[in-house]
């Protein structure tokens, strides 16, 4: 069953079309991957669905409801949560407070409940010393904290925008396990990723974007064998 359904969603920035008639469905309880070369519109798609930008045209349905014109915080309340390509920790708050933000405002929890739930989430994601300031955290920890902040809103759908970017091999393995752990709790996840191994290991289905349009979709094996995708995206790999 489709939990998220976009119908011919377009987004223009002035004369530049970042998304053109993108129709994508995300099924409940799956891990879907979105791949595509730089500038294909992956992050714009996340931003449009999560409400940072409104679509220029098209329709976004979530759990059967039309949320096309909803503001970002309303989309969060509806159950869409996301992390950011470049980490965006709130430096004025410490680790646990960052996570609490999601629990307090995503779910309208009072402070005490929010703290308790956030502590459980930190434990679940293996985050320690939860009263640390952001400046004392590693890149991996900040990424995990952002996932915890997103999970604290108790989403039905989680967007992970390049969660592995900038991580080394071990950290990437750690992150893949983390995503699996979150999925095993019944979460529907969309991952936007450049690291192909991550897509191969995690996703049930992949959508390929190019120049703001959907190029093709299917399983990783099907998509990675598609000649159009190889030219558009994996072509560089074939050369070396």
């Amino acid at each position, binding site marked *: 069953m489709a939990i998220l359904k976009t119908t011919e969603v377009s987004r223009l920035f002035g004369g530049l079309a970042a998304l053109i008639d993108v129709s994508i469905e995300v099924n409940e309880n799956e891990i879907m991957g979105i791949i595509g070369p730089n500038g294909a519109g992956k992050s714009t798609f996340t931003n449009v669905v999560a409400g940072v930008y409104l679509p220029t045209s098209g329709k976004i349905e979530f759990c059967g409801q039309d949320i096309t014109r909803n503001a970002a915080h309303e989309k969060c309340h509806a159950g869409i949560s996301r992390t950011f390509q470049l980490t965006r920790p709130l430096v004025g708050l410490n680790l646990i407070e960052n996570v609490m933000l999601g629990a307090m*405002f995503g779910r309208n929890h009072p402070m005490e409940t929010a703290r308790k739930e956030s502590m459980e989430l930190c434990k679940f994601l293996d985050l320690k010393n939860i009263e640390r300031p952001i400046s004392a955290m590693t890149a991996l920890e900040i990424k995990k904290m952002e996932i915890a902040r997103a999970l604290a809103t108790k989403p039905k759908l989680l967007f992970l925008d390049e969660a592995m970017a900038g991580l080394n091999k071990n950290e990437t393995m750690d992150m893949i396990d983390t995503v699996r752990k979150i999925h095993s709790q019944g979460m529907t996840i969309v991952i936007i990723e450049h690291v192909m191994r991550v897509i191969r290991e995690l996703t049930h289905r992949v959508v390929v974007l190019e120049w703001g349009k959907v190029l093709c979709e299917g399983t990783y094996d099907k998509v990675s064998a598609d000649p159009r995708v190889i030219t558009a995206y994996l072509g560089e790999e074939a050369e070396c």
Partner: protein
Amino acid sequence: MKYSKYFAVLVLLIASVVLPNFLGLYQLQIMNFVFVYIAFALSWDLLLRSGQLSFGIAGFAGIGGYISVLCGYHFALNPILCILIGSAVAGIVALLVGYQVLKLRGLYFSIVTLAIGEIFRVIVRNLEVTGAAEGILLPNAIFMGNAFKTYWLMLTIAAVTIIISILFKKTRIHYALTSIANDEIVAASSGVNIFKYLVIIFVVTSAIQGMAGAAYWQIYASVTPEGAFNLGFALLPITMALFGGVGTTWGPVIGATILSVTAEYLKLQFPHGHLLVYGFIMVVAILWFPRGIMGVINKITAKFNN
């Protein structure tokens, strides 16, 4: 260490209660300035914690002042009631203006808040009912000019501001405002209704400024357009908050206390050059302790704790 904080507050409270017994009329009058500027500086800092730089103090203090004096002049209401009405009207104006203005950010927001005072100054200057350019003179000052009673009134207003600031630091609103100041996209994505919280903080701080302005002009029992909407009311509290250290409750309080007392002292010592010395103090403060006095205090306590 934990209890020393409560101890300090207790000492401060006792000091402010005992203080008037040792002060003359002139010193009591200075204390009124201190309390007004505490309310202005701290309320300005409260809004700054959401990332919005406002010059609206002059406007809202003027609105509060004018409304309260008008209520006293035309309807002969109890001065305390007049002050509360002035505060409420300042809050309502902030709500109406905020609904439009809080969609703006950065410089654009700041410029509009600067304009609020100017717009109302021009309006009251040209209306008969507000006394036009001459302003309005009340028959009597609040409490018939009793300096002790005005001291308690101004102390209460400053204390209310401090309590609101402490409450806002300890509740959900602190997280909302900090997230908005740090990163609005993250705040919204985490479910924070940015516009709602900005309107709340803008209305609350403006109502405080309206209340302090109303009380201030009730003491003088008069208002004039140039006096009530004086831009100094916007700029001095900002300097005081920066001097004391922004983002904290006690920074602006300390800054307002030190600088308003210093300003008065300098006026007595150097009647013709006091602003020069005042400016010199500011330059030294910015150069040597840019995080304000609270920044220095925090540094020292951090060293002690280590």
